[in-house]
């Protein structure tokens, strides 16, 4: 049980799944009721999860091991050292909140975007929420892997059942690509478990080992468990591959445009909003914490991939005519920033990456919703089909502009904070000896992404929203409905708030990020 005396975190994790079970009681054809029930459950989850930052203690003393809060631990398979073990620290806090925040919004959007098999969709959505929160809070490698893989199933179904024409190809590709990426991580988990167990059993006979990576990390830091460099690099690689595909990093990104374009709006939102963050979260949580030396070793190479991704994603986005595809490729670019920040391996870079994950979730989620709005009205997403939407739908145009600017990283809005911190971190990513980890050349290229973001987003905005209303089909479009305004408005609030008061988010993650980077302080000059 956690310090609270009741399993707050577990409730947040399992409430949506429970809701999914309850939804089975709703008659299959009663769409309205299942939507409402789902909205109720997810909203309740969000409401409860709001207690997390309130009760979160941001300044736990820096301990040897990652200091988790709200920990619930129950033995699961004791003879393996597997336990149901969930906990929260500053790294996962906001990601959990992002999940619980985005899900009700997504559910709210299903009124407009999901029209068949509504109950099944809501069930999958709630199951997905449980899995996603689970990934962020699992403290046990086995549990983590289960949640991690389980996220695939609902998402693949969402794409495959409710998607557009080419949905099956996209769903299969999404599932297989990410699944194939994860299996190596499974091997790495097994290997890590055995290596650790054998190392500890050498001094403590009869030790059954553990999948609690907090313990493993602690042993790694205390030196009672030493990983040989080559082995650590291999394990690092196995974890990283899984995360890189999920993120997705260039050149593992090709499933993303397909998945996004085919997925229904709600699926795209949840995919971009939360699911992609699983990968980058994993990098921070596992690659950095468990394999610090290998991280240092691989950082420049990964930095190069990240920078390529930033520019590549942006350029490819520029050439898209389908708005959804454009936004999808922009995700590649933005997630490149996140990875760059993570492998800056310093406080500012990693914090920036974390906040950028939140920002990307909000902005890109909102962008997909916005594209969905127009798709529902016109059943096309080609930029060329539109023009002058701002005139016909002023509120829609205004909201889109705000979100576009947030995505383009305009200072004062959320996107800027993350991008700046990331690049600042990368700029200063030097070892104490002066050896460069990333440094200014990486920033020099990454900053092109900032320019290009303006280019491709304005190309979309200028093309579809400005100009004259050439196409008569667009002349009579109705502006946002009240529900759409609520959905998008909810997303706009944090977009502005984070831009002006990012410290609300930075402050709780400070200790935890420092803890993740525990091993690097001393290695990496913070200046």
């Amino acid at each position: 049980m956690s310090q609270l005396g009741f399993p707050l975190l577990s409730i947040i994790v399992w409430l949506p799944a429970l809701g999914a079970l309850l939804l089975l009681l709703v008659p299959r054809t009663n769409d309205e009721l299942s939507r409402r029930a789902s909205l109720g459950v997810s909203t309740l989850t969000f409401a409860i999860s709001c207690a997390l930052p309130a009760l979160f203690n941001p300044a736990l003393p820096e301990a040897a091991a990652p200091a988790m809060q709200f920990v619930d631990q129950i033995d699961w398979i004791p003879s393996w050292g597997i336990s149901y073990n969930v906990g929260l620290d500053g790294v996962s806090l906001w990601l959990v909140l992002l999940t619980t925040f985005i899900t009700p919004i997504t559910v709210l959007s299903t009124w407009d975007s999901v029209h068949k098999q509504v109950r099944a969709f809501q069930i999958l959505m709630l199951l997905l929420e449980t899995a996603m929160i689970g990934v962020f809070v699992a403290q046990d490698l086995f549990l983590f892997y289960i949640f991690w893989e389980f996220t695939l199933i609902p998402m693949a179904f969402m794409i495959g059942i409710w998607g557009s024409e080419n949905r099956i190809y996209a769903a299969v590709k999404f599932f297989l690509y990410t699944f194939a990426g994860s299996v190596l991580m499974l091997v790495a988990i097994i290997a890590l478990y055995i290596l650790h167990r054998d190392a500890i059993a050498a001094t403590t006979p009869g030790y059954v080992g553990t999948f609690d990576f907090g313990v493993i990390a602690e042993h790694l830091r205390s030196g009672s468990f030493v990983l040989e460099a080559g082995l650590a690099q291999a394990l690092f690689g196995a974890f990283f591959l899984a995360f890189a595909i999920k993120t997705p990093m260039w050149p593992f990104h090709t499933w993303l445009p397909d998945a996004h374009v085919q997925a229904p709006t709600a699926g795209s939102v949840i995919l971009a909003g939360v699911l992609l963050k699983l990968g980058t979260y994993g990098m921070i949580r596992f690659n950095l914490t468990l394999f610090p030396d290998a991280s240092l070793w691989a950082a420049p190479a990964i930095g190069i991939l990240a920078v390529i991704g930033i520019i590549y994603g942006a350029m490819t986005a520029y050439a898209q005519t389908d708005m959804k595809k454009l936004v999808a490729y922009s995700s590649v670019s933005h997630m490149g920033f996140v990875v760059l920040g993570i492998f800056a391996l310093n406080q500012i870079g990693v914090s920036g990456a974390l906040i950028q994950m939140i920002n990307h979730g909000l902005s890109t989620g909102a962008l997909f919703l916005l594209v969905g709005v127009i798709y529902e009205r016109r059943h096309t997403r080609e930029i060329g089909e539109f023009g002058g939407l701002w005139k016909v739908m002023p509120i829609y145009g205004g909201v889109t502009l705000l979100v576009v600017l947030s995505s383009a990283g305009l200072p004062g809005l959320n996107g800027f904070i993350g991008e700046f911190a990331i690049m600042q971190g990368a700029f200063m990513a030097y070892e104490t000896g002066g050896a460069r980890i990333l440094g200014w050349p990486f920033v020099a290229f990454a900053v092109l992404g900032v320019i290009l973001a303006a280019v491709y987003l304005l190309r979309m905005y200028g093309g579809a929203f400005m100009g004259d209303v050439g196409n008569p089909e667009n002349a009579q479009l109705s502006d946002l409905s009240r529900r759409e305004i609520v959905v998008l408005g909810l997303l706009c609030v944090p977009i502005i708030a984070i831009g002006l008061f990012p410290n609300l988010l930075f402050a709780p993650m400070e200790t935890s990020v420092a803890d993740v980077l525990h091993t690097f302080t001393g290695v990496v000059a913070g200046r």
Partner: protein
Amino acid sequence: METIPIPPVDWSAITPILVVIGWATALLLIDVFAIPQDRKRVTGYLAIVGLIVAALAAIPLWGTSSVTFSDMLVLDNYSLTLNWIFLLVGVLSLAMALDYLPRQEIEQGEFYPLIMFAVGGMMLLAQGTDLIVLFLAVELLSITLYILAGFAYPRLASEEAAMKYLLLGAFSAGFFVYGIALIYGATGTANLFAIGEHLASPAAANGENTLLLVGAGMVLIAFGFKVALAPFHMWTPDVYEGAPTPVTAFMSVGVKGAAFAAMLRILALALPTLRPTWVVVLGGLAILTMLVGNIAAIAQTNVKRMLAYSSIGHAGYILLAIMAIDAERGVQGFLFYMLAYALTNLGAFGVVIALEQKDEAAWSLNDFTGLWGRQPELAIAMAIFMLSLAGVPPTAGFVGKFYVFTAAWESGLGWLVLVGVLTSAVAAFFYLRVIVRMFMQESTYVTEATAEARVVGISEAKDASPLLYRGLASGITVAAVGAILLGLIPTPVVVLVERSMLALAP
């Protein structure tokens, strides 16, 4: 007077086998004499009862360990757990057959006792510690299955399957016997314990072991044939496709499990000292099997055949566990995987059976198209089975793979684990394809059929909604629930298999 001492016989050690075999023999007679032709279901129910009784009879034996019949049979927790698994397989197969046979109009009373005999053979395989016993058990199992495979007479495919199985089975039996002969020639015994002792002796360690090696190799090949290791797997797709579906289901898990059980015992008792040698051989076979099974399945559009190839792939994974017997988790992993695989695969075949109509092989992927719209429960169950077979959490299949891979890694089979996980990623493709068909595609012909049905005034089109009998439904339900529960709460079963230790000495 000179007396011939009868070696001490502990009948209790084979109580479950005795119950099964005895019940089956009696049931054969009862079926012939007491049960009318149109009430053959009763025989089936009686057979199920028999298997359940045998399972109950095994409970008191838990924890005891005895070697009896001149060290030819052993009772240990390992064999008991296997017995339960086999009995479960038997029960579920019978439950499915109860629906299948009448619908296909091939119901004969003998079917049910034959399954029981096969189960008996499987149990004997799990308990035998002498090559002679193992040979007999294999043949008991095989011959009944030859008959069962051809049970759908006059359907030619069924006869063809039986013929192929028989010819190749006999072929492999030849190798089995010849292998035994060579081992016997080298060691003077066919008893596993004795062979192990012989090999452990210093003389054997230094001496020339070629005869023994070749003999052991042949015996392993014969078992490899039964479990469908590549390249001895060629019969599998054809036989699985041709045989009546419940028989296929039974074979795919029962025979495989039993043969692996015996193989494990041979490796653990007789050949532990030769591990470096057979690891190479079996490792090669395992890689080949995982690759062939999982890759060949990609090209299949026939679900039954696809499942056959998938079962080959799974044989590769199970082999990993078998090879890892020097690690503590090898045996456990094997048992856990067997149970997980048995539930899942039986369930999957159960769904195939549910879709199968008289004279209509509903095995094509097309028959699964849009199943979710027609039979949501069936589709969801099938999805669970497919995900479990693919090893996606939170299903039994995932925990099984996790168990097996951990065991293999522990015993230093890292490269095989790599091949294992990569091929399981490949395998996900064809499992997923079934799900895609069921959930993500609208079936065109069904809508036509339904429309037609509406015109004619039939409430449900035949294809659109095959009837689900109680036996089949309960079988599928048990399998599906089991596959999920085993994935979420594997702990009780883990505890069970952890205690299912092998008796390593007489």
